[in-house]
């Protein structure tokens, strides 16, 4: 089983979910077994304005623990993260960061996932 602890910068109570990674995809948006896939599939909302196709930054999350268990970021994701508000060294796009092994992860959902208008 994989355990994911989700913290919210906006003050919402933290959530902890446990799931069987081999059952992915859990829904239809983002890469299968990505953080976005897992969160949406377990009733935790994460913005994904582009539909989870690595074309915006609204699913930006900050990984606090377990970063090494996620797929490596590709150039497309890194280029987009460059433009994400509140970027941190462990920032990832939820739709692209795939959980590769059973593990324990902690992520923070930032307060702002806002567009660049």
């Amino acid at each position, binding site marked *: 089983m994989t355990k994911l602890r989700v913290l919210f910068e906006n003050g919402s109570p933290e959530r902890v979910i446990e799931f069987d990674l081999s059952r992915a995809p859990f829904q239809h948006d983002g890469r299968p077994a990505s953080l976005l896939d897992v969160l949406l599939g377990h009733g935790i909302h994460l913005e*994904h304005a582009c539909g989870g196709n690595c*074309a915006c930054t*609204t699913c930006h999350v900050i990984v606090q623990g377990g970063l090494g268990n996620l797929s490596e970021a590709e150039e497309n994701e890194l*280029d987009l993260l460059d433009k994400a508000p509140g970027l941190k060294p462990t920032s990832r796009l939820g739709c692209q960061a795939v959980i590769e092994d059973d593990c324990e992860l902690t992520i923070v959902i930032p307060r702002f996932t806002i*567009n660049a208008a």
Partner: protein
Amino acid sequence: MRVVDVAPDTRTLHLRLPPDTHFRFTPGQFVSCLLPVGGSDIVRAYTIASHPEDVPAIEIVWNLVPNGQGSHYLFGLGIGDTLRFTGPWGTFTLDQAPAAECVFIADGTAVAPIRPMLRRALDTGSGHAVRLHYAAPRAAGLLYDAEFRADAATHPRFTYEPLLGGDLLAHIERRYVAGDDDRTRHFYVCGVGAIVHRLRDLLRGAGYARRAVQYEKW
């Protein structure tokens, strides 16, 4: 709302925003549509192909994707129907022309964000050349072709270069990699599939600055 078939499998929707809607966007951005499909809402992004000055009207363009739930739903919409969306979103934008030659590269319907970006580049630039390389399998697939030709006729610094059925990657390599040593240009690339990353890698690998090569892959 107005519906225009611009090619057999390609359609534009001209949407009118509700009164009192304060909607502003930067050329290149998209709206995130909530489409009621299969008993729930699915999220699909559609780039705004019109200009910010056209608000309260906006235009989106898309083609029919086989088995594509979103595109089939949109094809079923008609005049008077309502489309729910959030936005604008997206960071593939051009608000002010760069102080350098500006090269747009578009592929098929992915010219949608390029259209308002190009107009903004022409309206805000300071004399640098602006080019559009627009690839499509055949002439009927060149959206906004007449408009781009008219722009080229009225803006001496703008060159419109459609490419029908050719090898876009090889064409760009000949022009901007093998063609000269100038690496000051800025590129804005939008296309469908792997060609976008190949163009990105070609240009960055040739010495153009990373942030001077902006792209969006559909």
